């Protein structure tokens, strides 16, 4: 059963001479529980695609169907609630709220939904991310890698159906990097979460079920590694 269907998705920036087509008529579908790696050269449109999947940007053309719902037909409020409950988005540039502590940043999606925090789960994640002892720090008191790990924690906390990660290990050493990928994979396996990861790391790409190569805003290759 496909959880995600992308049809003719395009995104361009600017108009006229300076117009840039970041995504050009991209279509593919994703099965529930799949682990997909997206690779491609810098500037090829990977982040753009991921943002469109996460409902945080607006496409120029085409649509994104999640569970048979066209998410860009939803109104602002519905879309916000959809993001809050269904999507875990890990940004390339972390994007934490500077005035909130690590703990508050991580539990934010739950708090917005007025969900009680499952303390057991929270502590498991914190431990797995190696953030114990940093919970009451503000983002600008953390290293780049730590900030990235907080943003991963924030994405994991609400058990989203769709986990989207933009170079989640870009700032981490190989040991840390492996642990994070294992964590994401564990959620992917145990909770049947769909996982899409952008990466430049071949090691990570090879662990995926399927690898999408993007070049110049188009899907250049779509390889299924393990069916």
């Amino acid at each position: 059963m496909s959880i995600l269907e992308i049809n003719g998705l395009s995104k361009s920036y600017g108009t006229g001479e300076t117009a840039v087509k970041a995504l050009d008529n991209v279509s593919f579908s994703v099965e529930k529980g799949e682990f997909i790696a997206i690779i491609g050269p810098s500037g090829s449109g990977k982040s753009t695609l991921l943002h469109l999947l996460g409902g945080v940007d607006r496409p120029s053309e085409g649509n994104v169907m999640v569970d048979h719902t066209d998410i860009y037909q939803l109104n602002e409020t519905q879309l916000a609630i959809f993001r809050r409950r269904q999507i875990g988005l890990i940004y390339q540039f972390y994007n934490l709220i500077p005035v909130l502590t690590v703990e508050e940043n991580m539990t934010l999606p739950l708090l917005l939904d007025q969900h009680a925090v499952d303390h057991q789960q929270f502590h498991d994640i914190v431990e797995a991310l190696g953030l114990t002892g940093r919970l009451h720090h503000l983002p600008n008191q953390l290293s780049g890698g730590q900030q990235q790990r907080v943003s991963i924690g924030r994405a994991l906390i609400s058990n989203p159906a769709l986990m989207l990660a933009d170079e989640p290990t870009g700032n981490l050493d190989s040991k840390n990097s492996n642990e994070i990928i294992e964590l994401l994979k564990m959620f992917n396996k145990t909770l049947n979460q769909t996982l899409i990861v952008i990466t430049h790391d071949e090691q990570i790409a090879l662990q995926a079920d399927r690898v999408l190569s993007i070049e110049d805003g188009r899907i250049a290759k779509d390889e299924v590694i393990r069916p």
Partner: protein
Amino acid sequence: MNIVNKITLRQLKQNKRRTLVTIIGVIISVAMVTAVAVLATSFQDFMKQVTIASDGEWHVEYANTPANQLPTIQEDEQTDELVVTNDLGYAEFDGAERESKPYLFFKEMNEAGFDLFPVQLTEGRLPQSSGEVLINENILADTKTDLGIGTTFTVDIGQRVALNSEQPLGQETSIQYEDKKALEKLKPKQTKTFTVVGTMESTIWERSWSPGYTILHYLDPSTLNEGDKVNSIAKVNNVNSSIYDNAEHLAEQTGAEEIHYHDSLLRYYGVTDHSNLKKTFFSLIVILMLIIMIGSISLIYNAFAISVSERSKHLGMLSSIGATKRQKRNSVFFEGGVIGAISIPIGILSGIAGIAATFMFINPIIQEVANVDQKLSVVVTPISLVSAVVVSAVTILISSYLPARKASKLTAMDAIRQTQDVKLTGKAVKTSKLVRKMFGMEAEIGLKNLKRNKKRYKATVFSLVISIILFLTVSFFTDNIKKSLELTQADINYDIKLSGFEDVSADDIKPYTQLEGVTASTFIRTIYLSASVEEKKVPEVVKDYKQRPLDNGKYSYSVNLYAMDDESFRKYAGEIGKKTDDMIEADQPSAILVNEITYNDQSSGRVIETEGILTNVNETLTLHSIRGETEQKGLGEIEIAALTDQLPMGITSTSRPGGVDLITSEQMLETFLSNQKPEHARNTLYLNSSDPMKTQEAIEEIKPSHIRAYNVEQSRQQQERMLLFMSVFTYGFIALISAISIANIFNTISTSIAIRKREFAMLKSVGMTPKGFNKMINYESIFYGFKALIYGLPISIACMGAIYVSLRHTFTYGFALPWISILYVIIAIFIIVGSTMLYSIRKIKKQNIIEGLRQENL
């Protein structure tokens, strides 16, 4: 231009809206500072004009200068024009009809005198040669003498002297007599012949009580003899503090006997030392300027602080590639310079224009209120301009100092960390669980934002608090003055009051009741007497107040005896529930005692209400004239017919310990006086009219100069204009200060929201709904509003209390909070904060999340 300044300029251009709001704020404050400075110089000039119009344009008087020395003064460098004048003295006025004005008063002046002193010609021409005179037009109005233009008359002129001491008397001293016996005489010195060439309005050398009508003679200084002594009065070229030394020097040189300075005029040049006016005036200006500066500094400081924290990334980067502390600091001063260079000239021009417009509006009012012909005109002196520029520049400098210091300290590290405004402590910010429960997570995030961005939050609350205090205290002040004015008129139920001194008889003013439009009238004869009261009848407060009794053990009371015309008396007695039938006809004179006094005790500051005399109906009071300290001069006994606390219309209570008011009728007064003549009496007629202004005109046409007509309607209108006049300035001031505050609030709030663009995008991306977003912003607004009110209201109330205490003597009523203004403030604060928030957030709400995240800063 160096690169740092280039970046600064580019940034100012990029943040157009904030730069514009800052510039507008600075323009307003420069305009206000300019306005205050120009207002000061213009008022000074206006007061000079008014003083010159009423007292003449002169500066120094050399009394009794030998006539042969006049050229010395005339040719002195500092002398511009020289008035030569001389009081000739008095002559008996054969046609005089008023007891208090039996003389003609002769004064002579040279041409400069007619020019520099306010002589208002009403008919004919000014005298041009010896022997020609101008006469006071009242001579013709008050009497039947034929001193018309063209008349030539001869008089014996001499000096008025007191009978016993031979002391010379002048126009300041009224006619001296007692019991119809004159206490002064005239000592004729010379006989002169004059020709009347014109009439003039009453002059400044004649008071309402002066005994002589003024006649001005033309003095040709060349006709003076060697030994003559005259007064020479100089108008000085260039008024500055050197005129004192120079005048003394000249007096010594010429042998002038005395020097008088025109202090009331000189003080408006700011040269007198012995005048509090300068101090009061100056401190008022300083206070106003300080208020403006506080408002503006908080605005400009905020603007610079915001811009520095925005630029922190550039500044940090620059420092990592080698910009010095100085370069970084100067970039902030450069920003201040750019803003100042644009705002100061515009501000000064608009300040002057604003004042000019205000003057145009208030000139008619001020002419009416102050009863002058002079106009307020814009006077800009180099000093006022320079001080406006200096104050504005200092304001900008002070405002940019701290941000500049901060900028100089920015390092590359700060640039990387970026959000250095956020407090760098891990300490949990306590927000009550209640907030989250009641308003949701969104409110809590809003609150955390405020608390962690302490500086910006404090600056915003501070500017709100300042606005609240300014608005409330200023409106409290105006409100109270308004109330005082209204109170003074509250009890008045007549339209026109006619009154005069002792020489205005009942027959003089009673005919006015027959004028057209008069609907009702009350005639009251007031006699000022005293009474001795036995100790046991004197209340304790009065004893305390009087301190000790007279030698005979009794206490002396001052008594105002009011005799109303019989009909009005009957009406009044009826109002207080007293039958008058047996009273008026009785042999024993009786009166109604107004026996309740209310007064403000100066030492305790409390309002005290007490009985005047401890007495009862049917007891008597022994009255005597004021001069008679002993009872030998007693006028007789009067019986107390009734006690009351209610005064008849038109009479205001004496209300002081040791004073009482007695009300009686005209007929009973006759019985009481039985042909004795009291020394201090006054006749007053109160009129009601269907058209007060018209009746007033009719009165003005026929009344002689010694009857005073007071028109309530007219004075009511005058006071209303006075209030309007004050309101123009106070509310203008409030409005401008509020404008600065609003600009400030706008700047702080909108920037703090713009800076949080990224954060908002982030919140949206993790699923904050538009509704939640509104909630957060609303909560922040409410929080700002509450915080500002929590500080602002108590401080304002304390300020009002302080104003009330210091002006207690002016306010004759209790302290009352201006609830309406407070309500306005509360509403206005939430509206201003809320609408600014909404305005700032409007764009951000629509923005694309990814775009928001890409925002570096703004």
